[in-house]
């Protein structure tokens, strides 16, 4: 029972959504790079990427993330939820920095810090209003 309640917590779903969106973007990127190379005349649509299993995993991650998002919107106002989910935008560079050793420019660090500060402000509002 405890596990079930935890899983259906909107904040857990929001976090899961952010991770799934991040994973989907990385998988699609990998799929686009390893997909079959097609003649240039049709390659621009990106269909070559469909030949890669990574692309299909990416699409699956996107579909799952959308299910999470719909659940989140049942419980959290969209204006605040959309702000919180924007954290996915900084998870990609942070992940690349932590796991791939990619450098992050000072300008990017400022952006990441700004997003995180904003996320804390919004999260506090959502937590407070969901307790009343």
């Amino acid at each position, binding site marked *: 029972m405890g596990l079930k309640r935890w899983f259906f917590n909107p904040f857990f779903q929001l976090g899961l959504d952010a991770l799934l969106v991040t994973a989907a973007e990385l998988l699609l990127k990998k799929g686009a790079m390893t997909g079959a190379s097609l003649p240039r005349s049709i390659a*621009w649509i*990106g269909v070559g990427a469909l030949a890669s299993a990574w692309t299909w995993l990416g699409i699956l991650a996107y579909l799952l993330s959308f299910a999470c*998002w*719909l659940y989140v*919107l*049942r419980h959290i*106002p*969209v*204006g*605040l*939820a*959309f*702000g919180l989910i*924007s954290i996915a*935008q*900084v998870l990609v*560079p942070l992940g690349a920095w932590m796991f791939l050793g990619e450098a992050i*420019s000072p*300008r*990017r660090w*400022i*952006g*990441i*810090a*700004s*997003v*995180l*500060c*904003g*996320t*804390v*402000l*919004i999260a*506090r*509002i959502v937590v407070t209003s969901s307790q009343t």
Partner: protein
Amino acid sequence: MTAIAIFLACLSQFFLVIGQLMLRRGMRVTPVRVGSVAAGIGLLTVWFFLWLGLLADWDLSRLFPFEGLNPVLVVVGAWLFLKERVPLSGWIGIGLISLGVALVTSS
């Protein structure tokens, strides 16, 4: 960027914002309003392909103002059309997130 690209970028943001508002409108009630959710999914599909087309032609670092503005547009739209009340600290938080997303995508 060309005038057409800027127009298409604005149009895609419009579809994204209205799509998100429709999703929330459909999901926040019990029973769920299926029509609103379907409309939201339709609008987000249009946004997805418009944005994909723009990303194919332009580098993301050129499109950052549009990407950055999204959280602000959604919160303004939700305030106007869904009567979502947001305290001052929420507006400041959204401003910081928008600025941060713009900075991260621009470099």
